[in-house]
């Protein structure tokens, strides 16, 4: 690792320290203008107004959202109001009807050989 990677081993450059010291001397704190405090309070009041408007808007939005949620909840909870005219039966009922239709249409194929065999068997028994 190179030497300059170790902060502990680093010695501050004297020319830099001297330059910063001179800079501190050269930068005298400026005197505050006569309008410093009035302008500061104007800025505070302006930002307070923004906060107030923003706060009120946020509250109004939250109230509207709550009201809309409540109305939707009531609408969903009301019986018979949300029935779709295309689907008047429940899913289970529709399945049962479909099953019944399928059963009614079911027919086994008739095999001539098996009928002949059955008749022969009856004759043998007799």
């Amino acid at each position: 690792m190179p030497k300059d990677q170790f902060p502990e081993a680093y010695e501050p450059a004297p020319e830099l320290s001297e330059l910063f010291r001179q800079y501190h001397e050269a930068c005298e704190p400026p005197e505050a203008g006569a309008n410093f405090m009035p302008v500061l309070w104007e800025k505070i009041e302006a930002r307070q107004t923004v906060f107030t408007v923003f706060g009120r808007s946020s509250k109004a939005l939250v109230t509207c959202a709550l009201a809309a949620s409540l109305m939707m909840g009531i609408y969903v909870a009301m019986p018979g109001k949300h029935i779709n005219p295309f689907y008047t039966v429940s899913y289970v009922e529709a399945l049962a009807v479909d099953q019944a239709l399928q059963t009614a249409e079911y027919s086994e194929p008739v095999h001539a050989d098996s009928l002949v065999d059955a008749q022969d068997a009856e004759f043998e028994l007799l």
Partner: protein
Amino acid sequence: MLVEFDLIKRAQGGDSAAFNQIVLAYRKRILGTIARLISRVEDVEDVAQEVFLRLFFSLDQLRSPEVFETWLYRLTVNAAYDYLRKQRRRPESRMSDLSEQQVMMADAAASGKFDAEEQRKRRVRESVSSLLGAVSEEDRILLTLKEVEGLSLKDLEKIYKVKENALKVRLFRARHRVLRALGSTSPVER
């Protein structure tokens, strides 16, 4: 502490007069720090007002008045950092962007009104300003607080909320970058 804890508590309670007293007590110190951090005289007051504005709206978040000064320093550093970042986004300089002081100094220098000492100070300000302008805002602020403001590592630890060793590394790297920038520029006249 330049103010009593009681005054801070009163300001926290919404006492405007108490807040005014706090501003008056710390105004000079904050103006000085900002002047050294941003080195643009006509914007110093604006940034200082932003610091006190932030103080006003966040004073109720201060849990213990003992850490008030560290906290105020942090607000100052953040406001200066935001200012420097905005400045960096618009680096082009026009004549109308020159500060009043710069124009005044240029005029005075041209007419020979300034004495040698004032000219030397101006050159130092310009040199350090351009030197610090060559590094990032973070490096600039950290170095100014440590080397120019003379804050201790303990103070910086509280302001930056980082460990002393981490600060040492950051300072070392910042100094290294400034030294490189110093090496690439012409030596300052002393």
